[in-house]
Protein backbone atom coordinates (compact mmCIF):
# COMPACT_ATOMS: atom_id res chain seq x y z
CA UNK A 1 0.00 0.00 0.00
CA UNK A 2 1.35 3.42 -0.93
CA UNK A 3 0.60 6.67 0.72
CA UNK A 4 -2.17 8.77 -0.79
CA UNK A 5 -0.56 11.39 -2.96
CA UNK A 6 -1.14 15.01 -2.00
CA UNK A 7 -3.14 17.25 -4.34
CA UNK A 8 -0.98 18.88 -7.08
CA UNK A 9 0.18 22.45 -6.55
CA UNK A 10 -2.32 25.15 -7.44
CA UNK A 11 -0.39 26.20 -10.55
CA UNK A 12 -0.65 22.73 -12.09
CA UNK A 13 -4.37 22.30 -11.49
CA UNK A 14 -6.67 22.82 -14.47
CA UNK A 15 -9.39 25.32 -13.95
CA UNK A 16 -12.90 24.16 -14.89
CA UNK A 17 -14.33 25.52 -18.14
CA UNK A 18 -16.47 28.63 -17.91
CA UNK A 19 -20.00 28.36 -19.30
CA UNK A 20 -20.01 28.67 -23.08
CA UNK A 21 -16.27 28.50 -23.33
CA UNK A 22 -14.73 25.90 -25.58
CA UNK A 23 -12.75 23.80 -23.19
CA UNK A 24 -9.73 22.90 -25.24
CA UNK A 25 -7.65 22.17 -22.23
CA UNK A 26 -9.84 19.35 -21.03
CA UNK A 27 -8.39 15.88 -21.19
CA UNK A 28 -10.84 14.69 -23.81
CA UNK A 29 -11.30 17.84 -25.86
CA UNK A 30 -14.91 18.71 -26.50
CA UNK A 31 -16.57 21.21 -24.16
CA UNK A 32 -15.85 19.24 -21.02
CA UNK A 33 -17.88 16.29 -22.19
CA UNK A 34 -16.08 12.97 -21.82
CA UNK A 35 -14.94 11.31 -25.02
CA UNK A 36 -16.43 7.99 -24.05
CA UNK A 37 -19.13 7.30 -21.56
CA UNK A 38 -17.47 6.07 -18.35
CA UNK A 39 -18.32 2.53 -17.33
CA UNK A 40 -20.32 2.06 -14.16
CA UNK A 41 -17.21 0.73 -12.46
CA UNK A 42 -15.32 3.87 -13.34
CA UNK A 43 -18.24 5.94 -12.10
CA UNK A 44 -18.28 4.06 -8.81
CA UNK A 45 -14.54 4.52 -8.31
CA UNK A 46 -14.80 8.17 -9.26
CA UNK A 47 -17.76 8.67 -6.88
CA UNK A 48 -16.01 7.01 -3.96
CA UNK A 49 -12.83 8.95 -4.66
CA UNK A 50 -14.69 12.22 -4.73
CA UNK A 51 -16.44 11.46 -1.39
CA UNK A 52 -13.10 10.58 0.20
CA UNK A 53 -11.55 13.66 -1.32
CA UNK A 54 -14.38 15.86 -0.05
CA UNK A 55 -13.93 14.57 3.49
CA UNK A 56 -10.15 14.70 3.29
CA UNK A 57 -10.11 18.30 2.09
CA UNK A 58 -12.29 19.38 5.01
CA UNK A 59 -10.72 17.29 7.81
CA UNK A 60 -7.08 16.95 6.89
CA UNK A 61 -7.28 13.22 7.52
CA UNK A 62 -4.67 12.06 5.05
CA UNK A 63 -1.81 14.22 6.35
CA UNK A 64 -2.75 13.10 9.85
CA UNK A 65 -2.83 9.43 8.84
CA UNK A 66 0.43 9.78 6.93
CA UNK A 67 2.05 11.17 10.04
CA UNK A 68 0.45 8.65 12.37
CA UNK A 69 0.61 5.40 10.39
CA UNK A 70 3.86 5.99 8.48
CA UNK A 71 5.89 7.42 11.33
CA UNK A 72 9.41 6.15 11.70
CA UNK A 73 10.00 3.32 14.15
CA UNK A 74 13.39 2.26 15.47
CA UNK A 75 15.34 -0.62 14.04
CA UNK A 76 14.58 -3.88 15.84
CA UNK A 77 10.87 -3.19 16.34
CA UNK A 78 9.28 -6.61 16.74
CA UNK A 79 6.12 -8.47 17.66
CA UNK A 80 6.35 -7.44 21.32
CA UNK A 81 5.47 -3.94 20.18
CA UNK A 82 2.00 -5.11 19.14
CA UNK A 83 0.88 -5.93 22.68
CA UNK A 84 -0.49 -2.43 23.24
CA UNK A 85 -2.59 -2.53 20.10
CA UNK A 86 -3.72 -6.02 21.02
CA UNK A 87 -4.92 -4.71 24.39
CA UNK A 88 -6.76 -1.91 22.67
CA UNK A 89 -8.50 -4.32 20.33
CA UNK A 90 -9.45 -6.48 23.30
CA UNK A 91 -11.01 -3.35 24.81
CA UNK A 92 -12.87 -2.59 21.58
CA UNK A 93 -14.17 -6.15 21.48
CA UNK A 94 -15.36 -5.78 25.08
CA UNK A 95 -17.03 -2.49 24.22
CA UNK A 96 -18.91 -3.90 21.23
CA UNK A 97 -20.01 -7.16 22.88
CA UNK A 98 -20.89 -5.17 26.01
CA UNK A 99 -23.20 -2.87 24.07
CA UNK A 100 -25.09 -5.87 22.71
CA UNK A 101 -25.24 -7.61 26.08
CA UNK A 102 -26.69 -4.40 27.54
CA UNK A 103 -29.63 -4.77 25.14
CA UNK A 104 -30.76 -7.92 26.97
CA UNK A 105 -29.37 -7.54 30.49
CA UNK A 106 -31.53 -6.15 33.31
CA UNK A 107 -29.58 -4.59 36.21
CA UNK A 108 -32.08 -5.46 38.93
CA UNK A 109 -31.32 -7.82 41.81
CA UNK A 110 -34.47 -9.84 41.19
CA UNK A 111 -34.04 -9.95 37.39
CA UNK A 112 -30.26 -9.94 36.83
CA UNK A 113 -29.68 -13.69 37.12
CA UNK A 114 -32.72 -14.53 34.99
CA UNK A 115 -31.82 -12.08 32.25
CA UNK A 116 -28.19 -13.27 32.20
CA UNK A 117 -29.26 -16.89 31.86
CA UNK A 118 -31.77 -15.85 29.20
CA UNK A 119 -28.89 -14.37 27.21
CA UNK A 120 -27.01 -17.66 27.50
CA UNK A 121 -29.86 -20.06 26.87
CA UNK A 122 -32.44 -18.35 24.67
CA UNK A 123 -31.10 -15.38 22.74
CA UNK A 124 -29.69 -16.25 19.30
CA UNK A 125 -25.86 -16.31 19.56
CA UNK A 126 -26.26 -15.06 23.14
CA UNK A 127 -23.98 -17.72 24.56
CA UNK A 128 -21.33 -16.80 22.00
CA UNK A 129 -21.46 -13.05 22.62
CA UNK A 130 -21.56 -13.51 26.41
CA UNK A 131 -18.65 -15.94 26.11
CA UNK A 132 -16.66 -13.44 24.06
CA UNK A 133 -17.26 -10.80 26.73
CA UNK A 134 -16.46 -13.18 29.59
CA UNK A 135 -13.27 -14.64 28.10
CA UNK A 136 -12.33 -11.35 26.43
CA UNK A 137 -12.11 -9.76 29.85
CA UNK A 138 -9.47 -12.30 30.88
CA UNK A 139 -7.65 -11.84 27.58
CA UNK A 140 -7.59 -8.07 28.06
CA UNK A 141 -6.12 -8.36 31.55
CA UNK A 142 -3.45 -10.82 30.37
CA UNK A 143 -2.57 -8.59 27.41
CA UNK A 144 -2.40 -5.38 29.43
CA UNK A 145 0.04 -6.97 31.89
CA UNK A 146 2.15 -8.42 29.05
CA UNK A 147 2.22 -4.93 27.52
CA UNK A 148 3.23 -3.49 30.89
CA UNK A 149 5.98 -6.10 31.22
CA UNK A 150 7.25 -5.34 27.72
CA UNK A 151 7.40 -1.63 28.54
CA UNK A 152 9.20 -2.32 31.80
CA UNK A 153 11.78 -4.80 30.51
CA UNK A 154 12.51 -2.76 27.39
CA UNK A 155 13.04 0.32 29.57
CA UNK A 156 10.42 2.14 27.52
CA UNK A 157 9.06 3.93 30.61
CA UNK A 158 12.13 6.16 30.89
CA UNK A 159 12.45 9.82 29.92
CA UNK A 160 10.57 11.28 28.09
CA UNK A 161 7.86 8.61 28.37
CA UNK A 162 7.23 8.63 32.15
CA UNK A 163 3.82 10.27 31.75
CA UNK A 164 2.76 7.56 29.34
CA UNK A 165 3.77 4.96 31.93
CA UNK A 166 1.65 6.76 34.51
CA UNK A 167 -1.34 6.84 32.15
CA UNK A 168 -0.76 3.14 31.48
CA UNK A 169 -0.78 2.32 35.19
CA UNK A 170 -4.09 4.18 35.57
CA UNK A 171 -5.40 2.13 32.63
CA UNK A 172 -4.35 -1.09 34.41
CA UNK A 173 -6.24 -0.02 37.54
CA UNK A 174 -9.32 0.90 35.49
CA UNK A 175 -9.17 -2.43 33.64
CA UNK A 176 -9.09 -4.29 36.96
CA UNK A 177 -12.00 -2.13 38.12
CA UNK A 178 -13.88 -3.27 35.01
CA UNK A 179 -13.22 -6.87 36.04
CA UNK A 180 -14.42 -6.19 39.59
CA UNK A 181 -17.62 -4.39 38.62
CA UNK A 182 -18.44 -6.81 35.81
CA UNK A 183 -18.04 -9.87 38.00
CA UNK A 184 -21.16 -9.04 40.04
CA UNK A 185 -23.49 -8.66 37.07
CA UNK A 186 -24.37 -12.35 36.34
CA UNK A 187 -25.54 -12.36 39.99
CA UNK A 188 -25.09 -16.05 40.72
CA UNK A 189 -23.74 -17.37 44.01
CA UNK A 190 -20.14 -17.04 42.92
CA UNK A 191 -20.40 -13.46 41.69
CA UNK A 192 -22.43 -12.41 44.75
CA UNK A 193 -19.99 -13.77 47.31
CA UNK A 194 -16.93 -12.71 45.33
CA UNK A 195 -18.31 -9.18 45.32
CA UNK A 196 -19.13 -9.33 49.04
CA UNK A 197 -15.49 -10.26 49.68
CA UNK A 198 -14.20 -7.63 47.24
CA UNK A 199 -16.27 -4.84 48.80
CA UNK A 200 -15.13 -5.87 52.28
CA UNK A 201 -11.54 -5.82 51.04
CA UNK A 202 -12.18 -2.17 50.15
CA UNK A 203 -13.64 -1.67 53.62
CA UNK A 204 -10.40 -2.90 55.19
CA UNK A 205 -8.58 0.32 54.28
CA UNK A 206 -8.26 2.58 57.32
CA UNK A 207 -10.47 5.71 57.57
CA UNK A 208 -11.64 5.92 53.94
CA UNK A 209 -12.14 2.18 53.41
CA UNK A 210 -15.52 1.87 55.13
CA UNK A 211 -16.83 4.89 53.22
CA UNK A 212 -15.57 3.45 49.95
CA UNK A 213 -17.45 0.24 50.70
CA UNK A 214 -20.57 2.27 51.49
CA UNK A 215 -20.18 4.04 48.15
CA UNK A 216 -19.90 0.76 46.24
CA UNK A 217 -22.88 -0.84 48.03
CA UNK A 218 -24.92 2.38 48.14
CA UNK A 219 -25.35 1.97 51.89
CA UNK A 220 -24.22 -0.28 54.67
CA UNK A 221 -25.70 -3.43 53.17
CA UNK A 222 -25.97 -4.99 49.75
CA UNK A 223 -29.22 -3.41 48.54
CA UNK A 224 -31.51 -2.88 45.55
CA UNK A 225 -29.27 -0.13 44.09
CA UNK A 226 -25.99 -2.02 44.39
CA UNK A 227 -26.29 -3.76 41.02
CA UNK A 228 -27.34 -0.58 39.16
CA UNK A 229 -24.33 1.20 40.68
CA UNK A 230 -21.92 -1.54 39.61
CA UNK A 231 -23.60 -1.62 36.21
CA UNK A 232 -23.28 2.15 35.71
CA UNK A 233 -19.63 2.06 36.74
CA UNK A 234 -19.03 -0.97 34.52
CA UNK A 235 -20.65 0.29 31.32
CA UNK A 236 -20.54 4.09 31.54
CA UNK A 237 -18.03 5.64 33.91
CA UNK A 238 -15.02 3.33 33.66
CA UNK A 239 -15.17 2.58 29.89
CA UNK A 240 -15.47 6.30 29.18
CA UNK A 241 -12.36 6.97 31.23
CA UNK A 242 -10.52 4.07 29.58
CA UNK A 243 -11.39 5.30 26.09
CA UNK A 244 -10.24 8.85 26.92
CA UNK A 245 -6.99 7.63 28.46
CA UNK A 246 -6.29 5.29 25.52
CA UNK A 247 -6.57 8.40 23.33
CA UNK A 248 -4.04 10.25 25.47
CA UNK A 249 -1.79 7.16 25.57
CA UNK A 250 -1.80 6.83 21.77
CA UNK A 251 -1.23 10.54 21.29
CA UNK A 252 1.90 10.37 23.41
CA UNK A 253 3.10 7.22 21.63
CA UNK A 254 2.77 8.98 18.27
CA UNK A 255 4.29 12.20 19.57
CA UNK A 256 7.27 10.69 21.41
CA UNK A 257 7.86 7.64 19.19
CA UNK A 258 8.80 4.18 20.39
CA UNK A 259 12.05 2.90 21.80
CA UNK A 260 14.47 0.43 20.26
CA UNK A 261 14.74 -2.93 22.01
CA UNK A 262 17.45 -2.89 24.69
CA UNK A 263 19.66 -5.44 22.90
CA UNK A 264 20.31 -2.96 20.06
CA UNK A 265 23.20 -0.60 20.77
CA UNK A 266 23.05 2.89 19.33
CA UNK A 267 25.00 3.13 16.06
CA UNK A 268 27.95 5.44 16.20
CA UNK A 269 28.18 7.71 13.20
CA UNK A 270 31.63 7.79 11.54
CA UNK A 271 31.75 11.52 12.00
CA UNK A 272 31.16 11.18 15.71
CA UNK A 273 33.85 8.53 15.95
CA UNK A 274 36.33 10.85 14.36
CA UNK A 275 35.45 13.61 16.77
CA UNK A 276 35.89 11.28 19.68
Amino acid sequence: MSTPSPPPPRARRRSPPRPGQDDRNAWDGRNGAPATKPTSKEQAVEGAASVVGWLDERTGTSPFLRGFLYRKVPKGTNWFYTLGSATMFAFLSQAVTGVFLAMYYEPDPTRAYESASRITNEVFLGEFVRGMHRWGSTVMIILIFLHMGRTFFFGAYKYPRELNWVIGVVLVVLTLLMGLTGYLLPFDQRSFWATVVAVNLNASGPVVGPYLADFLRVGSEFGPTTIPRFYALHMLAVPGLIAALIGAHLYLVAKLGTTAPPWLKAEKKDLLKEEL
Partner: protein
Amino acid sequence: MADSPKKFDKKSRYTEARGLPGAFEGETITRRRLMEGTALAAGGIATMAFALPGLGFALGPLFEDTLPTRWQDVGPEEDFNEESYVPRVMNIDAEIGDAGKTTIYVRKFKPGADKVVKGQDRQPYVVISTRCAHLGCPVRYIQASQKFVCPCHGGVYGFQGQVEGGPPVRPLDRFYTRVRAGRVEVGDRFSLNSQLERFAPRDPSNHLDGLWQYLYPSRPTT
Protein backbone atom coordinates in the same frame (compact mmCIF):
# COMPACT_ATOMS: atom_id res chain seq x y z
CA MET B 1 14.80 60.24 17.25
CA ALA B 2 15.85 62.81 19.67
CA ASP B 3 13.83 61.55 22.53
CA SER B 4 15.37 58.73 24.40
CA PRO B 5 13.04 55.72 24.41
CA LYS B 6 10.59 55.87 27.26
CA LYS B 7 11.55 53.68 30.17
CA PHE B 8 8.99 51.06 31.14
CA ASP B 9 8.75 49.39 34.50
CA LYS B 10 7.98 45.77 33.64
CA LYS B 11 7.10 44.97 37.24
CA SER B 12 4.65 47.83 37.76
CA ARG B 13 1.06 46.86 38.60
CA TYR B 14 -0.23 49.55 36.18
CA THR B 15 -0.60 48.50 32.57
CA GLU B 16 0.26 51.99 31.43
CA ALA B 17 3.54 51.94 33.27
CA ARG B 18 4.30 48.54 31.73
CA GLY B 19 3.92 50.15 28.34
CA LEU B 20 1.11 47.97 27.06
CA PRO B 21 -0.57 49.42 23.95
CA GLY B 22 -4.00 50.93 24.55
CA ALA B 23 -3.55 51.06 28.32
CA PHE B 24 -5.66 53.41 30.38
CA GLU B 25 -4.36 55.45 33.22
CA GLY B 26 -4.77 53.69 36.53
CA GLU B 27 -5.57 50.34 34.85
CA THR B 28 -4.06 47.36 36.65
CA ILE B 29 -5.32 44.55 34.45
CA THR B 30 -5.55 44.37 30.69
CA ARG B 31 -8.97 43.91 29.10
CA ARG B 32 -7.78 40.71 27.45
CA ARG B 33 -6.70 39.29 30.79
CA LEU B 34 -10.02 40.29 32.36
CA MET B 35 -11.95 38.53 29.60
CA GLU B 36 -9.75 35.45 29.96
CA GLY B 37 -10.51 35.33 33.65
CA THR B 38 -14.22 35.91 33.05
CA ALA B 39 -14.44 33.15 30.46
CA LEU B 40 -12.60 30.70 32.70
CA ALA B 41 -14.75 31.61 35.70
CA ALA B 42 -17.96 31.24 33.67
CA GLY B 43 -16.82 27.83 32.42
CA GLY B 44 -15.89 26.79 35.93
CA ILE B 45 -19.25 27.87 37.33
CA ALA B 46 -21.11 26.08 34.52
CA THR B 47 -19.12 22.89 35.16
CA MET B 48 -19.70 23.04 38.90
CA ALA B 49 -23.40 23.63 38.28
CA PHE B 50 -23.78 20.08 36.99
CA ALA B 51 -20.77 18.37 38.57
CA LEU B 52 -21.56 19.22 42.20
CA PRO B 53 -25.22 18.10 42.18
CA GLY B 54 -24.16 14.96 40.30
CA LEU B 55 -21.47 14.18 42.84
CA GLY B 56 -23.83 14.86 45.72
CA PHE B 57 -26.38 12.57 44.09
CA ALA B 58 -23.84 9.74 43.85
CA LEU B 59 -22.43 10.27 47.35
CA GLY B 60 -25.69 11.15 49.14
CA PRO B 61 -26.41 7.63 50.41
CA LEU B 62 -23.12 7.74 52.34
CA PHE B 63 -24.65 10.20 54.77
CA GLU B 64 -28.03 8.68 55.52
CA ASP B 65 -29.03 5.65 57.51
CA THR B 66 -30.07 3.31 54.75
CA LEU B 67 -31.46 0.62 57.04
CA PRO B 68 -34.01 1.85 59.57
CA THR B 69 -34.60 -0.40 62.59
CA ARG B 70 -37.16 -3.10 62.02
CA TRP B 71 -37.82 -5.67 64.70
CA GLN B 72 -38.25 -9.11 63.19
CA ASP B 73 -40.05 -11.98 64.87
CA VAL B 74 -37.88 -15.12 64.91
CA GLY B 75 -40.14 -17.42 66.94
CA PRO B 76 -41.56 -18.09 70.43
CA GLU B 77 -39.32 -18.15 73.48
CA GLU B 78 -39.73 -21.92 73.86
CA ASP B 79 -37.79 -22.48 70.62
CA PHE B 80 -34.52 -21.35 72.14
CA ASN B 81 -32.26 -22.53 74.98
CA GLU B 82 -29.06 -21.51 76.75
CA GLU B 83 -26.87 -24.36 75.58
CA SER B 84 -26.99 -24.41 71.80
CA TYR B 85 -27.64 -22.14 68.87
CA VAL B 86 -30.78 -22.40 66.74
CA PRO B 87 -30.48 -21.16 63.13
CA ARG B 88 -33.06 -18.69 61.85
CA VAL B 89 -33.39 -16.71 58.62
CA MET B 90 -33.89 -12.96 58.77
CA ASN B 91 -34.33 -10.27 56.16
CA ILE B 92 -31.64 -7.62 55.92
CA ASP B 93 -33.12 -6.07 52.79
CA ALA B 94 -36.58 -7.26 51.77
CA GLU B 95 -36.41 -5.57 48.36
CA ILE B 96 -33.81 -7.82 46.80
CA GLY B 97 -35.32 -11.25 47.33
CA ASP B 98 -33.12 -14.10 48.49
CA ALA B 99 -29.96 -12.00 48.25
CA GLY B 100 -31.28 -9.86 51.11
CA LYS B 101 -31.76 -12.77 53.51
CA THR B 102 -29.19 -13.97 56.01
CA THR B 103 -28.88 -16.75 58.56
CA ILE B 104 -28.58 -15.88 62.25
CA TYR B 105 -27.91 -18.12 65.26
CA VAL B 106 -30.15 -17.54 68.29
CA ARG B 107 -29.50 -18.64 71.88
CA LYS B 108 -30.89 -17.61 75.27
CA PHE B 109 -28.63 -15.44 77.45
CA LYS B 110 -26.93 -17.64 80.07
CA PRO B 111 -26.43 -15.79 83.37
CA GLY B 112 -22.99 -16.43 84.84
CA ALA B 113 -21.46 -17.81 81.66
CA ASP B 114 -22.19 -14.91 79.32
CA LYS B 115 -20.27 -11.71 79.94
CA VAL B 116 -22.14 -8.53 80.84
CA VAL B 117 -20.13 -5.43 80.00
CA LYS B 118 -20.33 -2.70 82.63
CA GLY B 119 -22.43 0.21 81.43
CA GLN B 120 -24.09 -1.71 78.61
CA ASP B 121 -27.51 -3.27 79.02
CA ARG B 122 -27.63 -7.02 78.64
CA GLN B 123 -29.57 -8.53 75.80
CA PRO B 124 -32.11 -11.24 76.69
CA TYR B 125 -30.88 -13.36 73.77
CA VAL B 126 -27.53 -13.85 72.09
CA VAL B 127 -28.07 -13.56 68.34
CA ILE B 128 -24.93 -14.15 66.31
CA SER B 129 -24.55 -12.83 62.77
CA THR B 130 -23.16 -15.35 60.28
CA ARG B 131 -21.14 -12.67 58.52
CA CYS B 132 -17.49 -13.54 59.02
CA ALA B 133 -15.48 -10.68 60.52
CA HIS B 134 -12.69 -11.35 58.04
CA LEU B 135 -14.26 -10.59 54.66
CA GLY B 136 -17.96 -11.30 55.06
CA CYS B 137 -18.39 -14.92 53.98
CA PRO B 138 -21.16 -16.85 55.76
CA VAL B 139 -19.96 -18.83 58.81
CA ARG B 140 -21.59 -22.09 59.95
CA TYR B 141 -22.12 -23.26 63.53
CA ILE B 142 -20.87 -26.76 64.29
CA GLN B 143 -22.64 -28.16 67.34
CA ALA B 144 -20.17 -30.97 68.04
CA SER B 145 -17.22 -28.62 68.57
CA GLN B 146 -19.35 -25.61 69.55
CA LYS B 147 -17.51 -23.45 67.05
CA PHE B 148 -18.35 -21.17 64.15
CA VAL B 149 -16.31 -21.95 61.03
CA CYS B 150 -15.90 -19.85 57.89
CA PRO B 151 -15.50 -21.74 54.59
CA CYS B 152 -13.61 -19.02 52.73
CA HIS B 153 -10.34 -18.45 54.58
CA GLY B 154 -10.59 -20.71 57.61
CA GLY B 155 -11.74 -18.34 60.33
CA VAL B 156 -12.76 -20.14 63.55
CA TYR B 157 -14.87 -18.62 66.35
CA GLY B 158 -15.75 -19.99 69.80
CA PHE B 159 -19.13 -20.38 71.45
CA GLN B 160 -19.31 -16.64 72.26
CA GLY B 161 -18.32 -15.75 68.72
CA GLN B 162 -14.83 -14.78 69.85
CA VAL B 163 -11.93 -15.38 67.44
CA GLU B 164 -10.11 -18.67 68.04
CA GLY B 165 -8.18 -18.98 64.81
CA GLY B 166 -7.62 -17.80 61.28
CA PRO B 167 -7.66 -14.27 59.86
CA PRO B 168 -10.76 -12.62 61.46
CA VAL B 169 -9.98 -9.37 63.27
CA ARG B 170 -12.82 -9.27 65.80
CA PRO B 171 -15.63 -11.48 67.16
CA LEU B 172 -18.73 -12.22 65.15
CA ASP B 173 -21.31 -9.41 65.14
CA ARG B 174 -24.53 -9.74 67.13
CA PHE B 175 -28.04 -8.32 66.97
CA TYR B 176 -30.13 -6.44 69.51
CA THR B 177 -32.97 -8.58 70.85
CA ARG B 178 -36.15 -8.09 72.80
CA VAL B 179 -39.10 -10.22 73.89
CA ARG B 180 -42.61 -9.11 73.00
CA ALA B 181 -45.64 -11.16 74.06
CA GLY B 182 -43.55 -14.28 74.48
CA ARG B 183 -41.90 -14.00 71.10
CA VAL B 184 -38.26 -13.20 70.39
CA GLU B 185 -37.62 -10.21 68.13
CA VAL B 186 -34.34 -9.29 66.45
CA GLY B 187 -33.36 -5.70 65.65
CA ASP B 188 -30.17 -3.88 64.58
CA ARG B 189 -26.75 -5.40 64.24
CA PHE B 190 -23.84 -4.32 66.44
CA SER B 191 -20.14 -5.14 66.50
CA LEU B 192 -17.94 -6.28 69.38
CA ASN B 193 -14.29 -5.89 70.22
CA SER B 194 -12.22 -8.74 71.62
CA GLN B 195 -13.50 -7.91 75.17
CA LEU B 196 -17.07 -8.34 73.83
CA GLU B 197 -17.76 -4.64 74.35
CA ARG B 198 -20.48 -3.29 72.10
CA PHE B 199 -19.80 -0.86 69.22
CA ALA B 200 -21.78 0.62 66.33
CA PRO B 201 -21.86 -1.89 63.48
CA ARG B 202 -18.71 -2.06 61.39
CA ASP B 203 -17.87 -3.77 58.12
CA PRO B 204 -16.03 -7.06 58.20
CA SER B 205 -12.24 -6.64 58.25
CA ASN B 206 -12.46 -3.56 60.52
CA HIS B 207 -10.48 -3.95 63.74
CA LEU B 208 -12.10 -2.57 66.89
CA ASP B 209 -9.50 -2.92 69.67
CA GLY B 210 -7.63 0.09 71.04
CA LEU B 211 -6.90 2.81 68.52
CA TRP B 212 -8.23 0.74 65.64
CA GLN B 213 -11.77 1.80 66.49
CA TYR B 214 -10.90 5.33 65.36
CA LEU B 215 -9.17 4.19 62.16
CA TYR B 216 -12.36 2.33 61.24
CA PRO B 217 -15.00 4.89 62.21
CA SER B 218 -18.67 4.15 62.59
CA ARG B 219 -20.54 5.61 59.63
CA PRO B 220 -23.85 7.42 59.21
CA THR B 221 -25.19 4.55 57.09
CA THR B 222 -25.26 2.01 59.89
